[in-house]
């Protein structure tokens, strides 16, 4: 018994060491994923932010084509980084709606003039209500919505070049 006990401290040390090494190699994932994935898109009615573009009204767009819903803001720097990828997605035939979080008409117009405009509709989410009701915890985030109006995928953070095929595949699957 005593002989075995002598190994106990070393055993404990090995366990703690393994935990620390694991934490260093694979830092914990602090992303908060939406619990709405797999559920129908909540009813959203957001006024238009730009004079020449519709706002978001989910009751009018419930059926039909699968769509992407991009949560963005002109004050968000990763949103600038993902803009070219959104343009690529649009060129590949994706329909992209947007929720502009806590933004102004002028700022968004300037943002779109500089970075391109991939959006079909842009809803004004001044008080983050739509963002909260989607379970989104930051900008940018992108939701994939299937033809029945169910959220099937959530991409957290900026879309990089390597994410484009994945999102296109998700859209294809959502038909």
């Amino acid at each position, binding site marked *: 018994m005593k002989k075995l006990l002598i190994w106990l401290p070393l055993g404990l040390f090995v366990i703690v060491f393994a935990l620390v090494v694991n934490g260093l190699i694979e830092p914990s994932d602090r992303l*908060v994923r939406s619990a709405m994935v797999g559920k129908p898109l909540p009813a959203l009615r957001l006024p238009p932010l730009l004079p020449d573009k519709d706002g978001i009204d989910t009751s009018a767009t419930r059926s039909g084509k699968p769509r992407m819903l991009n949560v963005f803001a002109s004050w968000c720097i990763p949103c600038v980084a993902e803009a070219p990828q959104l343009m690529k997605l649009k060129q590949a035939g994706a329909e992209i709606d947007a929720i502009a979080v806590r*933004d102004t008409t002028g700022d968004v117009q300037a943002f779109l003039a500089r970075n391109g405009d991939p959006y079909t509709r842009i809803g004004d989410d001044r*008080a983050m209500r739509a963002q909260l009701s989607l379970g989104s*915890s930051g900008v940018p985030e992108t939701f994939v919505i299937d033809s029945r109006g169910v959220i099937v995928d959530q991409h957290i953070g900026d879309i990089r070049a390597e994410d484009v095929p994945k999102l296109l595949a998700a859209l294809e699957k959502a038909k």
Partner: protein
Amino acid sequence: MRRGLFCLLLIAGAAHADSSLPPSPLAYTQLADPAQEAEAKALMETLRCLVCQGQSIADSDADMAGEMRALVRQRIAAGERPARVRQWLIERYGDYVTYDPPFSWVTAPLWIAPLALLGIGVLIARRLFRRRQA
């Protein structure tokens, strides 16, 4: 001169990755009814800020925490029960959003472990005291 420049550096604010829009009125204004405000405050203290995880939305100055406070106050003011508001957020963000985790198979060890440890402690203590008496 150098010192002056250094002081100028200190004046420069942090770079902000937040909106320049003013927050919703209820983010930083208490409700008029003290009872409702107390309910809302108690709820806010047990909701996680999703941007600055580890803080509650009552403690955080992040944009999103402010809007979550506004949402909580608005719903409480409209007569909704705090438990309903919490449930609404859990439906969207999962149990992670609340510091008061609901009882489920995943959280069962959290609730049962302290009781089990206390029980084991009592057993050990009883055995030790008995031996001493003998």
